[in-house]
C-alpha cells in the first residue's frame, strides 16, 4: 500500500454551535493549504448521514488514507467517524479529531481569535494524522455468567432477568437473608402495597431458580480479570449451622440463653433477637445463623453446661467447628447492587436522637408499624408497663439530606413520600392522633405521588412549613422548636413522638467494593455511573454495572427499572459472547525496559506485570502489558523513566510533533 499520507479535513459547523464563533470556511480554506492535505471541506453536521457520506466518497474518489474531523470532543463522535472510515475500507485508527467545539467555539467569544485557534488545532491534528498507524481491534470470549453483589430488590430483579434469559447468576448477599431494605418496609408508597406481599415471591424465586446460585452471608473478597472474563473470589462466612440439616424450625432461638437480649438489625434495634437467629420470619434461605460476635460458645467457649441450641436442635444442625469457605468462579459481567444505609441521626445532635427514646427514625417507625415487627404493628413507645401510644406526633423532614452541615447536599428522594405514607399509617392506627409534618419543600415528583400527598393532607395530617432547629424535653413532652415560615411565627410544639425522616447515604463500607472493582464515586459519595444521562447503569470499569441505591437514592420503581437496565446491559455482553478490547493500549518496549516495576505499581487497572525474558542469554525482568486489561489511560507512559512505555495512537513520535504544530512549545 502506498503509505504517502493523503489527508481529508472536514470542518463541522455543528449547526451554529461552532460556526457562530469560528469562521469554518476560513478554517477549511486554511486546511486545504496544509502539507499532505488532499481535500478540505466544511459541512453543517459532519455526524449526519450526508456528512459521513462526504468522507466515504472522498476516501474512494480521492484515495484518502488519513482523515481529520474538526468538530466536537472525541468523547462524542470518535466512534461514529471510526465506523465511517471502516465502512470505506480504511483502518478506523487513521482518524484524528480536532475538538473545535468544547475546546474552542463554546469557550471563546472573539470570532477572530477563535478562528485562529481552530486553525492551529486543525493544523496540529493534520500533523498527527500523518504519523498515525493502523491498529487492530481484538475480540475475546465472554464467560456466560454474571455476578450480582447485593440481594435487595435491585439485585433480586437483575438476577431474575439474567437467569430467565438463560445465563448463570451468582447472587452474593452479605447478610443471612435476601430481601434488603424493601423487606424492612411495611407498606410502599404511593399505592400502599404490602411490601412483603410483593417482595417475598421474588425472594423465593431467586432461591429456587436453577440458573441462580445464591450465596448468602457471603462477601466478595477479590475480583481480577477484565470485561467478559472476571475471576471472582467470595468468602462464605461460617453460619455455624449446617444449611442442609437446618429445617428453620426456630427451637434453637427460643432456647438460646441470649434470646431477647440482642438488638435485631432487621428491626432497627426496635426488637430483640437471640444469638442464633433468622433475621425475619420470611427470610430466604429459611436457615438459622449464629452471630459469632454474641454467641457465648463462640466468644467465650462456654455456654452454661452445654449450649442450649445444640440440645434443642432435633437434626443436629449446629456445628461450632464450621469454618469460612472460599468459593471461586468466573463471570463475564458484574452488577453492583449494594444499596444504601440510612443517615445516622446522632450526627444531628440537636434533634436528641441519642437522648430520647421517643425520637426515632422513619425506618424505626416502619418496623413499629409493620405487623411482623416487634410490637405486632402496635405503635407503642417505651418498654413494658411504661409503654404508651403517642398522640401528638411530629415528623421532621430532610434529616441528613439537603444539608451541607453534614456533607449531604443531595435530596434523598424518598423521604417526602415515606413520611406521607407513615403519617397516613399513623392516622389509620391511632385515629385520634394529631400528626404534623415539618417540611421545607414537598417533593412529590413520581407517578401518583402528588395525588398521595393530597390524600394524606385531606386525611388531616398537618403540613407546617419550617424545618425544625432542635428537639428538647420539657416535662413529659418533647418540644419541637421551629418557625412556621408561612406565618413567620416561632413554634415550640409539644409532642409525644418525633419521627426523623432520615435520608439515604452510601453504605458505610462502600469503600470495599470501590477497591475491589475500581469504581469511582460522584460528589455525593455514591458509586458513579459512566454518564449521568446516556450511560446511567454503566461504570468506568467495562463489564461492571450499577443498580439501585448504590448509585444514588431512589424509590422502588426506579430501583427496579435500573436493575432491569443493568441486567439488560449485562445480557448484551453475555449474549453476544464476544467483547472487543481497547486497541489504543499501552505497549512496553522490552529492549529498553529496565524492569523497575514503577508502571506495575501505578497502573490503576493491574494491567501490567513483570516477566522474565531472555536477553542475549541473560535473564532480565521487563514489564509487559495485558492488552485485554489495559484501558489506555497513559499513566504508565507518563510514569516510565526510560520512555519504554508508549501508548498506541499517542506515542511520543505522534503527539510531540502535534504539540509542536500548535506552536505552544519552544
Amino acid at each position, binding site marked *: 500500500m502506498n503509505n504517502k499520507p493523503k489527508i481529508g479535513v472536514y470542518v463541522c459547523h455543528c449547526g451554529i454551535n461552532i460556526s457562530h464563533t469560528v469562521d469554518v470556511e476560513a478554517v477549511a480554506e486554511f486546511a486545504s493549504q496544509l502539507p499532505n492535505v488532499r481535500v478540505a471541506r466544511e459541512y453543517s453536521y459532519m455526524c449526519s448521514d450526508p456528512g459521513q457520506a462526504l468522507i466515504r466518497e472522498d476516501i474512494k474518489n480521492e484515495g484518502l488514507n488519513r482523515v481529520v474531523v474538526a468538530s466536537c470532543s472525541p468523547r462524542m463522535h470518535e466512534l461514529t467517524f471510526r465506523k465511517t472510515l471502516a465502512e470505506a475500507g480504511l483502518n478506523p485508527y487513521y482518524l484524528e479529531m480536532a475538538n473545535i467545539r468544547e475546546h474552542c467555539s463554546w469557550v471563546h467569544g472573539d470570532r477572530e481569535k477563535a478562528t485562529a485557534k481552530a486553525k492551529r488545532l486543525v493544523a496540529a491534528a493534520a500533523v498527527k494524522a500523518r504519523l498515525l498507524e493502523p491498529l487492530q481491534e481484538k475480540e475475546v470470549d465472554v464467560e456466560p455468567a454474571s455476578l450480582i453483589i447485593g440481594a435487595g430488590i435491585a439485585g433480586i430483579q437483575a438476577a431474575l432477568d439474567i437467569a430467565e434469559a438463560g445465563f448463570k447468576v451468582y447472587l452474593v448477599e452479605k447478610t443471612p437473608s435476601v430481601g434488603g431494605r424493601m423487606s424492612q418496609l411495611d407498606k410502599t408508597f404511593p399505592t400502599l402495597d404490602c411490601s412483603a406481599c410483593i417482595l417475598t415471591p421474588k425472594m423465593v424465586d431467586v432461591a429456587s431458580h436453577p440458573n441462580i446460585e445464591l450465596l448468602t452471608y457471603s462477601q466478595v473478597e477479590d475480583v481480577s480479570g477484565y470485561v467478559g472474563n472476571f475471576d471472582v473470589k467470595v468468602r462464605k462466612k461460617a453460619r455455624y449451622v449446617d444449611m442442609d440439616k437446618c429445617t428453620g424450625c426456630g427451637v434453637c432461638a427460643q432456647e438460646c440463653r441470649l434470646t431477647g437480649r440482642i438488638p435485631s438489625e432487621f428491626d432497627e434495634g426496635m426488637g430483640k433477637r437471640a444469638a442464633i437467629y433468622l433475621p425475619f420470619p420470611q427470610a430466604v434461605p429459611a436457615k438459622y445463623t449464629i452471630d459469632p460476635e454474641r454467641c457465648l460458645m463462640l466468644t467465650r467457649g462456654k455456654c452454661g453446661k452445654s449450649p442450649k441450641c445444640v440440645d434443642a436442635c432435633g437434626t443436629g444442625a449446629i456445628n461450632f467447628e464450621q469454618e469460612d469457605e472460599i468459593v471461586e468462579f468466573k463471570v463475564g459481567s458484574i452488577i453492583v447492587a449494594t444499596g444504601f444505609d440510612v443517615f445516622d441521626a446522632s450526627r444531628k*445532635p*440537636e434533634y*436528641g436522637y441519642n*437522648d430520647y427514646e421517643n425520637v426515632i427514625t422513619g425506618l424505626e417507625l416502619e418496623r413499629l408499624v409493620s405487623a411482623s415487627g416487634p410490637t405486632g404493628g402496635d405503635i407503642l413507645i417505651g418498654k413494658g408497663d411504661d409503654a404508651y401510644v403517642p398522640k401528638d406526633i411530629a415528623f421532621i423532614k*430532610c434529616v441528613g439530606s*439537603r*444539608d*451541607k*452541615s453534614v456533607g449531604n447536599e443531595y435530596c434523598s428522594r424518598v423521604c417526602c413520600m415515606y413520611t406521607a405514607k407513615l403519617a397516613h399509617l399513623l392516622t389509620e392506627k391511632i385515629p385520634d392522633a394529631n400528626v404534623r409534618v415539618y417540611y*421545607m*419543600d414537598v417533593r412529590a415528583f413520581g407517578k401518583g405521588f402528588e395525588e398521595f400527598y393530597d390524600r394524606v393532607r385531606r386525611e388531616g395530617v398537618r403540613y407546617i*412549613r*419550617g*424545618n*425544625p*432547629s*432542635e428537639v*428538647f*424535653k*420539657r416535662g413529659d413532652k418533647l418540644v419541637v*422548636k*421551629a*418557625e*412556621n*415560615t408561612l406565618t*413567620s411565627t*416561632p*413554634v*415550640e410544639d409539644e409532642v409525644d413522638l418525633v419521627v426523623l425522616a432520615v435520608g439515604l447515604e452510601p453504605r458505610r463500607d462502600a469503600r470495599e467494593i470501590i477497591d475491589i472493582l475500581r469504581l469511582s464515586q460522584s460528589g455525593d459519595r455514591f458509586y458513579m455511573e459512566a454518564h449521568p444521562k446516556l450511560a446511567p447503569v454503566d461504570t468506568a470499569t467495562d463489564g461492571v454495572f450499577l443498580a439501585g441505591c448504590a448509585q444514588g437514592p431512589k424509590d422502588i420503581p426506579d430501583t427496579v427499572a435500573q436493575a432491569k437496565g443493568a441486567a439488560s446491559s449485562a445480557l448484551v455482553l453475555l449474549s453476544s459472547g464476544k467483547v472487543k478490547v481497547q486497541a489504543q493500549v499501552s505497549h512496553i518496549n522490552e529492549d529498553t525496559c529496565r524492569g523497575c516495576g514503577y508502571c506495575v505499581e501505578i497502573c490503576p487497572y493491574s494491567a501490567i506485570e513483570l516477566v522474565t525474558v531472555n536477553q542475549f542469554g541473560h535473564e532480565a525482568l521487563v514489564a509487559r502489558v495485558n492488552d485485554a486489561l489495559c484501558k489506555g489511560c497513559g499513566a504508565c507512559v507518563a510514569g516510565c523513566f526510560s520512555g519504554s512505555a508508549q501508548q498506541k495512537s499517542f506515542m511520543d513520535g505522534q503527539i510531540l510533533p502535534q504539540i509542536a504544530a500548535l506552536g505552544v512549545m519552544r
Partner: protein
Amino acid sequence: MNTEVQSFIQKHDLLGCIQCGRCTGGCPVNTRTDLNVRRIVYDALDESMLDELAKLPEVWDCTTCETCAIRCPKGLKPMEVLIGLRNILVESGVIQPTVRDALESAFREGNPWSKPKATRSDWMQGLDVKIAVPGEKVENLIFVCCTIAYDPKVQVIAQNFVKVLNKAGIDYGFVGDDEVCCASEIYNMGEVGEDGLFEMMVEDGTELLNSFDTTRIVTLSPHCYDALKNQYPDLQAEVIHYTHLLKEILEDEKLVFTKEFAQKIVFHDPCYLGKRNDVYDEPRYILNQIPGAEQVEFSRNRERSLCCEGGGGKMWAETESHKERLAEERVRDAKELGATILAVACPFCVLTLDDAVKAKGFEEEMQVMEILEIAGKLIE
C-alpha cells in the same frame, strides 16, 4: 451603590438561602423578641431595603450565639447578616449611646467598659501573680478579658486562676497592663469593615501577643477564646480556653481536688465555648473530679444549650422585650433539676445567670459559680 449592595448579598451568600426556617426556628431569642433572622435574610435580597432593615430595633436582639449558622443546611451565616446591618447603622453614626460609649472606650482605653487602662491589673492586688515579659520564654500566656479584669463580680475568676496556677506549679505569665480587649464584642456591635475598629484592634493585638515568646495563649473568657482562635489569623501561638489547661492539670495530677463539695451541679454550656467551638467535654471532665458532688444535665445541653443572652453586644444594647429573660428560664430549669450549683465557664454567663437567680428569688436554693471559683474553693 449598586455594586456595594451586590457585595452585601454576595458576602453573605444570601442567594443560597432556601428559607427553610431553621435559623429562626433555632434562634433562642425568638420567644421573647421580634427578631426573625430568616425574614431579614429574605428582605435583605432587596437592595433598597438594607438601610431600613438596619434601623429595626430587633437587629440588636441577636446574642451572636451562632445557632442560626450552625443549623443552616446551606452553609449561610445569618448572624453575620445582622452584624452587617449593625455595621450599616454604626457607619451612619445613629446608634444607642451605650453602644457608642463602649466602642469609644474600646478605642481609647482598650476596653469597652469605660474604665481607665491604668487600672486593668488592679484585680491582682494582694496576689502573687507572674507577669510575662516580651521575648522571655513562657509556656502559658494568660489573657484575662476586660470584663473579668474590671467587673468586681467576676474578678474572682482571674484571682482563682492565679491560685490554681501557682498551686499546680504551672509555667505561666499574665499579659498584664498592656492587655487590650480581644474585640469580640466590638465585632458583634458592628464596628467592622475596612478601617473598622475591629480590624485595627486585631492588628494591634496580634502584634502585642506575638511579641511574647510562648507556645500557647490561655484565655479566661470563651469570648476572647473564640476571637483569638478564629479571628486573629496571624497569631503565632495556639489559643486554648482555661478549661483545656485545667483538665490537663487534673489529668497530670498536678492538682487534685481533695475537699468534699457535696452539691448538685448542673453545667450551663456557654455558646462561645460549646456551640461555636465544640468544647463540651473539658468543663464536664473538671466538674466530674469534684469529690462528693452530683452532676446533673439540662435537657438543653451541649449543642442545644440555651443562650444566656450575655453576648452579641447585649451588655450595652438592652432589648426592649419585657418577656421572661432566657437566663431566668435557664435558672428555672436548673431549679427543676434540683441543682444547688449552676456551674458556668464564662464571665457573661455568670453575670446574666446571677442576675436571673436574684430576679427569681432563688438565692436560697441555688448559686451561680464559675468553674474556677469552685476549683479555688477546693484547693484552699
